[in-house]
């Protein structure tokens, strides 16, 4: 489909079972650098399960996951993050007791060079590192229009801002692949429109590929260049939004109902 080089992310024949229940069956997925891929499917199709095996929350029962050709199957979530995969959560998971800027700062912890003693001593490395982190955090928050909220408790932000802050926090880990789990959930139409623009800007500015789980068809169809459709834990279809929209299997499983709702 795209360049001949190694894909950024490749999932090969992944299955995930909990006892007798199959959450995912033989799912393969390929994402190239800088791509914007939408992942759709009815409720319970396995979208979040796929996210969870890609980010190391669960280990796939079968199959293999490669990041730039290196196997990362079953690695702990923090290791996968260091390989350049960051995510947001369907149910927002900000650090509730930390203010906005501290939420972003936690993303720099894994890259700290100075050790514990350096922190306690308030040594030179510590001070220059803290300055850099503060600066980069401030830049990110400013870019996303959250700088004025930077000392507010993260819980006190309006819903849309909390979602945005989660994206900022994920971007601060400098990912090459950003997984967004239903970023438009609970947003009003204006916020959704802003989100679409935001995703486009992130792609341009941060040169990261994005895998987007979303229920809202308008959001997905509007910005993704390729869609992956899951149904009952298996891959149903993949292709451009137009191709997917025309696919009878997809219409039967998913889009048909969605269109019906929209028209009513």
């Amino acid at each position, binding site marked *: 489909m795209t360049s001949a080089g190694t894909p950024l992310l490749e999932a090969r024949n992944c299955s995930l079972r909990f006892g007798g229940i199959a959450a995912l069956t033989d799912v393969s997925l390929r994402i190239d650098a800088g791509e914007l891929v939408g992942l759709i499917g009815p409720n319970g199709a396995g979208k979040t399960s796929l996210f969870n095996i890609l980010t190391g929350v669960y280990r796939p029962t079968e199959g293999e996951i490669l990041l730039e050709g290196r196997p990362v199957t079953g690695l702990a979530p*923090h290791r996968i993050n260091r390989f350049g995969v960051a995510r947001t959560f369907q149910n927002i998971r*900000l650090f509730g007791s930390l203010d906005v800027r501290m939420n972003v700062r*936690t993303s720099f912890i894994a890259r700290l060079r100075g050790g514990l003693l350096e*922190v*306690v001593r308030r040594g030179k490395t510590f001070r220059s590192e803290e300055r850099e982190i503060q600066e980069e955090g401030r830049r990110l928050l400013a870019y996303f229009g959250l700088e004025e909220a930077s000392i507010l408790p993260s819980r006190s932000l309006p819903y849309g801002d909390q979602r945005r802050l989660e994206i900022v926090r994920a971007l601060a880990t400098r990912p090459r692949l950003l997984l967004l789990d239903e970023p438009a959930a609970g947003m009003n139409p204006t916020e959704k429109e802003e989100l679409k623009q935001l995703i486009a800007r992130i792609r341009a500015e941060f040169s990261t590929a994005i895998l987007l789980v979303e229920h809202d068809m308008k959001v997905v169809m509007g910005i993704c260049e390729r869609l992956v459709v899951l149904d009952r834990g298996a891959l149903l279809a993949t292709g451009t939004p137009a191709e997917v929209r025309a696919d009878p299997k997809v219409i039967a499983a998913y889009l048909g109902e969605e269109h019906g709702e929209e028209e009513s």
Partner: protein
Amino acid sequence: MFHSSKALIRNPRLALAAGIGVAVLLQLGGGWIDPYTTQVVLFAAINVILAVSLNLVMGETGQFSLCHAAFMAVGAYTSALLTGKALPTLLPHLSWTGSSWASQVFFLPVLLVGGSVAALAGLIVGGPSLRLRGDYLAMVTLGFGEIIRVLLQNANFVGGARGMEGILPATNLFWAVGFAVLTVYTMIALVRSTYGRGFQAVRDDEIAAAAMGIDTTRVKVTAFVIGAFFAGVAGGLYAHAVEFISPEGFNFLRSFEIIVMVILGGLGRPVGVAIAAILITLLNEWLRDLSQYRMVVYALIIILFMILRPAETLRPLLSRVLPGRKPAAS
């Protein structure tokens, strides 16, 4: 006054130096302090170390540990063995009394070794068990505390259940207050850093913390080991203050007393926890006259404290006086 206190906060090392200066002054110019008061101050300082170090584990990192007294025991026994047996045997020509220069000079490394052995114990318990969550961790730490106590009870070379007596009275105001200041400083310095926010991130949401690249197990073990180290130092100070230690002194109730200080002080508030530790030490002293009713009254007061949560109520007031907790400007 306001400005100078602000400078102390900006430059934490200055605060540390000031605190240690106070400790030196207390030691040199504190001749007028009577032995009883001295004893109470020593206990208060030791409790501050215990509570503030447990706060790192419970308050900041959100891990429920029920064996802080066991780490204290490890430090106490290790250091008592060093000053009671190892040092006098290795250097018999030196004078080993509480205030002799030899015992004072060697007391620092002794305390640090006691803390390090306790930290090692923390690593041994924490390494495997911190993968567990919540109540499971509480059970493992409860079990570890009991294991240490029973081991000590059956170890004849440290006196078994009778305990060790005649420990060198090397603890004085300088060491106790100095280490209390150092502990509070270390905890505040640690938490107020990008590195330290990792503890709180793990407490707030482990899954999100891991997704942001934080090695959550490592963070928890680190908190546990640092907490155990300072508990071990506190144990060393305690042993050389009361001159007598026995396994029963480090049982579950002792751990629980430290937990009460942490909760009363407001989980995750090092300064509040230090204040709570001092208040509970004083409370213990005031209630001594009530003899057998002491624990009843003590329990009632603790229940009242828990309901009223003075730390919560006083926070807006305290934040004007205490460092870095300004209410968010809107």
